[in-house]
């Protein structure tokens, strides 16, 4: 597995150090080194890039905009931030980045970030693979890959009970895990990835496995594990229609 990366830092020495580290890790291919966000945006538009290393404190506003666009999921690229801010100050950025490197950082810190990038990329490729060849082998559409607790879980679809949205994260309740898996995935993305004939969104915050329904009444559904969940007003008609269809 190799990763094509772009290095971004406005301070020449800091950039040079970053590039030197990239050169020491055999899995990394340096596509470009950029001194500004504008320059980097051009490279990202032209080149095939897996991941970027980006300084958070670039002084110009375009740099901040760039970081925000990255944070808002406006980029398919994996991001590692490098920064001289304290851990505390960057708390808010945590969700979106694969890792943070606090300046100055050692080659070991850097290697840790690269390991995370590689893990993440493998997970993404597995997901893409599963999506693009849903029936390549009989079992593949039964497995759902999800990233939580620093590893990728291969879940059996039949084990998934329901998912609950929590901001940008999701809680996934599955039979095979004692506690819900917390994963960085939006409700929308989850619903796109689950087979629609077996899963259904019943509320702004809930998607359920239709095979796990025990009973339902008056805008509420109870799952076989006893969990009671609300059915949102806007989902009620579709829910009743689909459950009725399954009943028939």
């Amino acid at each position, binding site marked *: 597995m190799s990763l094509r990366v772009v290095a971004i830092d406005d*301070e020449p*020495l800091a950039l040079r150090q970053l590039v030197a580290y990239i050169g020491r890790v055999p899995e990394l291919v340096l596509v470009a080194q950029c001194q500004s966000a504008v320059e980097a945006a051009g490279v990202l538009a032209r080149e095939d890039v897996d991941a970027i290393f980006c300084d958070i404190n670039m002084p110009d*506003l375009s740099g901040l905009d760039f970081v925000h666009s990255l944070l808002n999921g406006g980029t398919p690229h994996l991001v590692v931030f490098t920064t*001289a801010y304290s851990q505390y100050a960057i708390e808010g950025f945590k969700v979106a980045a694969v890792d943070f490197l606090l300046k100055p950082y050692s080659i070991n810190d850097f290697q840790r970030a690269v390991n995370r990038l590689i893990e993440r990329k493998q997970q993404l490729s597995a997901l893409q693979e599963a999506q693009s060849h849903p029936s390549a082998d009989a079992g593949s559409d039964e497995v759902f890959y999800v990233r939580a607790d620093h590893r990728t879980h291969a879940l059996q679809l039949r084990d998934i009970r329901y998912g609950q949205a929590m901001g940008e994260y999701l809680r996934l309740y599955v039979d095979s895990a004692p506690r819900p898996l917390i994963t960085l995935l939006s409700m929308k993305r989850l619903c796109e990835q689950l087979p629609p004939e077996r899963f259904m969104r019943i509320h702004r915050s809930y998607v359920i496995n239709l095979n796990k329904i025990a009973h339902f009444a008056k805008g509420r559904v109870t799952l076989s594990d006893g969990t009671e969940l609300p059915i949102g007003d806007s989902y009620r008609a579709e829910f009743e229609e689909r459950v009725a269809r399954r009943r028939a």
Partner: protein
Amino acid sequence: MRKHRDELQQQLEYERIQQQLAFLNYQINPHFLMNTLNNIHALIAIDPEQAQDSIVELSRLLRYVLYEGDHQYVPVQREVDFLGHYIRLMRIRFTDDVDVRFDVELSQPSAGIPPLVMATFVENAFKHGVSYVARSFVDISIRTGQGRLCLHCRNSKHTYSKPLAESSGGVGLRNARQRLNLLFPGNHTLEISETADTYSVLLDIPLKLEGLPSSVGK
């Protein structure tokens, strides 16, 4: 009795001002420190000699801030030395496209000023004046004469520069202004002016010419 109460009042007022001053004292920006260490870290591989020089600069800068930053007065020369360390450390962080001038003429180098009284203005000049990608300048001049110190600090402005009040530089500036008001009420000038492409600070404060601690002139 009356006199005693007045004295007490004065004492309380003095202590209140000292407390406020302690709160407003310049504090080293941790971000500056970490970025400087990061650059020295890179220099160790690229230019070990410059890396060593930079560590010496940083040590001197820290020694001043840590040991003399809470003194009431320091000789002007000490403050100027500190600014020199700061400027040379900032210098390693950007390319030659930044034109930095540091012009000092001290006719009374051992006269006293409160420590770090110019630091915020110089720091802001770099923070807002330096572009890492376009041509830019920071121009600092310090003069003493007729019992006064005059700092003139100019820097280029860039299209992306935020108004100072919106950035964190605004806090530093507000604290510096308050500190000057407490230290030299009615006896200092702080003029900040902007044009389309230049930002300029003019500071004029009185020097303390007598009663300095014995370290003066060392």
